[in-house]
């Protein structure tokens, strides 16, 4: 197990290293660099900037260094000091902009996944056991709609319904009075009151995927001989289903855990933008619209880190519940 863990860990670190290079490349992709923006800000009054001055600023920003050095500058700050540098458009540290958005993003991810699994597993199992029943068709139908309705549209529609029929917007994550207050129990409850909307929106698409996986997996399993054998031995039906095929059907859920994280991370920004949620994805879009790739790159990297971490955990859990995985490497 230690060997396996180590291999997964090294794999994750290599992945993150290459990802960081790609993301740093994206940071530098837009035309113009930090020096241009800095100078444009500084000399907005209209005074002339000499080429020499530009060169001096470039030098001081380290922009004349080769790519790999600039990358190392960036990544070493993150590794050793958890410092993502300065925002390009306003002179604020990226860390400060991110603030507790990361916590909120993490909460949203896990709440969404929890909701997904809590619903997908029982419904998927039921659908498979009562195949072609009306309930099965109903859930499959809902699943299809969930797949086809883009998240941001779903959020928009919920927003419209809430304004049109309930007279209040479901946007935001806190009531005004808690927005700038410190964390307290009351604030946490307030958060929960607002959070069900993004979680339902994000959960629906994910639920549809998981429902199909669990159902398909169960359908494969319930006809296998070991199930028949157990039934022949007189194992009660409920116990039979939960004890044997369900266990098998859970494996793909564990192994796709990281992909679920990725899906939520991928869908969340636009939903957050529509619902005005102060989480990472929203900041990502806002900073991209502002061409502030320093902030955007930091967020992209954090998202990748969350994914890689999730992948690592799911690999370990999978190895623990299904020993065959370990041998395969």
């Amino acid at each position, binding site marked *: 197990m230690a060997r396996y863990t180590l291999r997964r860990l090294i794999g994750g670190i*290599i*992945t*993150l290293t*290459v*990802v960081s290079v*790609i*993301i740093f490349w*994206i940071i530098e*992709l*837009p*035309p113009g660099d930090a020096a241009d923006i800095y100078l444009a800000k500084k000399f907005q009054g209209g005074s002339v900037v000499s080429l020499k001055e530009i060169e001096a600023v470039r030098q001081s920003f380290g922009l004349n260094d080769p790519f790999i050095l600039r990358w190392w500058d960036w990544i070493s700050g993150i590794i050793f000091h958890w410092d993502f540098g300065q925002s390009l458009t306003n002179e604020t540290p990226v860390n400060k902009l991110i603030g507790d958005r990361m916590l909120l993003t993490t909460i949203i991810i896990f709440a969404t996944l929890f909701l997904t699994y809590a619903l997908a597993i029982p419904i998927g199992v039921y659908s498979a056991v009562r195949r*072609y029943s009306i309930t099965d068709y109903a859930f499959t139908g809902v699943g*299809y*709609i969930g*797949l*086809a*309705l*883009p998240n*941001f*549209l779903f959020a*928009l*529609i919920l*927003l*419209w319904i809430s*304004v*049109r029929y309930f007279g209040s*917007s479901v*946007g935001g994550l806190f009531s005004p009075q808690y927005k700038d207050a410190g964390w307290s129990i009351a604030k946490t409850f307030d958060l929960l009151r607002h959070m069900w909307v993004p979680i339902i929106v994000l959960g629906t698409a994910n639920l549809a995927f998981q429902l199909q996986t669990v159902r*398909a997996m169960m*359908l*494969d399993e319930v006809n296998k001989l070991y199930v028949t054998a157990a039934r022949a031995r007189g194992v009660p039906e409920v116990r039979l289903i939960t004890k044997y095929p369900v266990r098998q059907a859970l494996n793909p859920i564990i192994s796709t855990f990281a992909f679920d994280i*990725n899906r939520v*991370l*991928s*869908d969340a*920004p*636009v939903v957050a*933008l*529509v619902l005005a949620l102060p989480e990472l*994805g929203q900041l*990502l*879009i806002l900073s*991209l*619209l502002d*061409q502030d*790739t320093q902030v*955007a*790159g930091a*967020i*992209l990297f954090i*998202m*990748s880190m969350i*994914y*890689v971490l999730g*992948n690592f955990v799911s690999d370990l859990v999978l190895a623990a519940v299904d020993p065959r995985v370990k041998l395969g490497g």
Partner: protein
Amino acid sequence: MKLPKLLSRPNSNPPTNTDPSQMAADQLSEATQWHMVWVRFKRHRLAMISAGILSLYVLVVFFADFIAPYGVTTRDTNYLKGPPEIVKIWDGGPARPHIDSQITTRGGIEDGFAFTVKGLDSNQQIRWFVHGEKWTFLGLFESDFHLFGVGDEQIPVVTVKAPSSSNGIGSSSGAEDSSTTDGASDDPFASIQRDEDGRFQIGGAATTTADPTTTAVTTSASDTVNTKPEVIETATAPGFVHVLGTDGLGRDQFSRIMMATRTSMTIGLAGLFTAFFLGLIFGGVSGFFGGWVDYVIQRLIEIVRSIPTIPLVMGLAAAFPQDWSNQKIFFFTAIILGLVGWTTLARRIRSMLLTLQDEDFVVAARLAGAGPFRIVTRHMLPTFFSYIVVTLAIEFPYMILAESVLSFIGLGLRPPTVSWGVLLQDAQKVEVLEQTPWLLAPAGFIVVAILAFNFLGDGLRDAADPYQESS
């Protein structure tokens, strides 16, 4: 050899041809692969319906200019933020398709509340194949025919100032205005009512003596009601029909959606082919050569996948310079979609190649001295071509979706180019949604397209493999 299995498969929906199964089996045993795929596909009823819907989309892609009654930027200034106009085919009895006259609010004229009544007292007939704005078909020929419209006669347009409780500053008849201080003035539309024919009567009580020859404004010099609105302006304007309403600038939503459908479908297709091309190369090399090449490519795929897709697309699209033309943005958006989306295709192509690697016919080709390119393209690709089609059909919705998201948040295509995402941009704000919920209409087109592609993909997947039991 395995055909009987195909036919004996218990299936819930009956085969479409009523031939005895034996006859069908005889026909099938001589059928080409594509014919068998078609026969099986036909059984999947939802997939058939989806294919029909998608062919409508394809028609729109080619003939958007013809189907759309107006241009993308054409404005109907008398019908700003106008709700969808319902085409009626029943008017106390069967009637030719027509639309009723409409009111739109304009607001903000002096202190009062003004609104425009379009087509007062004249129901506009919907006509087929009318002359309208000129369009060109792929630069080949020019035409000014449109599928439907309202003809080109002028219709009366009356701008009316609603009675307001405050004393009208710019009003010439202050005596009448000052008396309008009752509850009725809360509703600016209270003084305007439709008669039984759907025409508007301006003035208080709906006088049922609708006289089609004179305009309602002149007949309703009602002195009995104190909510008499004031006519500011009477004019004529060309008629319009807006089956899905208009936006804040009075642009026809239906026409814009038709054009947007063209853009979104084309860009999705372009992205899909970029992804297909990359997937074919990487997946092909990976699956055919194996070894360390395979290892490197697989790690590369893992790395690309560990950055969340849509944020990655957004990050790349944010690098578009502001001064790029829309064609350039279109082109590069498609490339980005492909760059991010190729991994799924590459994985599938690789796994298919790996399973075929040891088939006799591949070994034979290799022994006969065929080069890798020839083996892959001539011997292996044709055997799993149908799977590729399936994968492409499943992948397409993601392309459409990514483009919509990108344009929706303002990082993709920019106005005046319209795509589904660009159109939905207008509907981003709650206030806008509240006033003009019909701006959400493009969402319906997106959902239907994605749903149809999902079902089509399912149907194709079942059909593409005639020997496999579908679960």
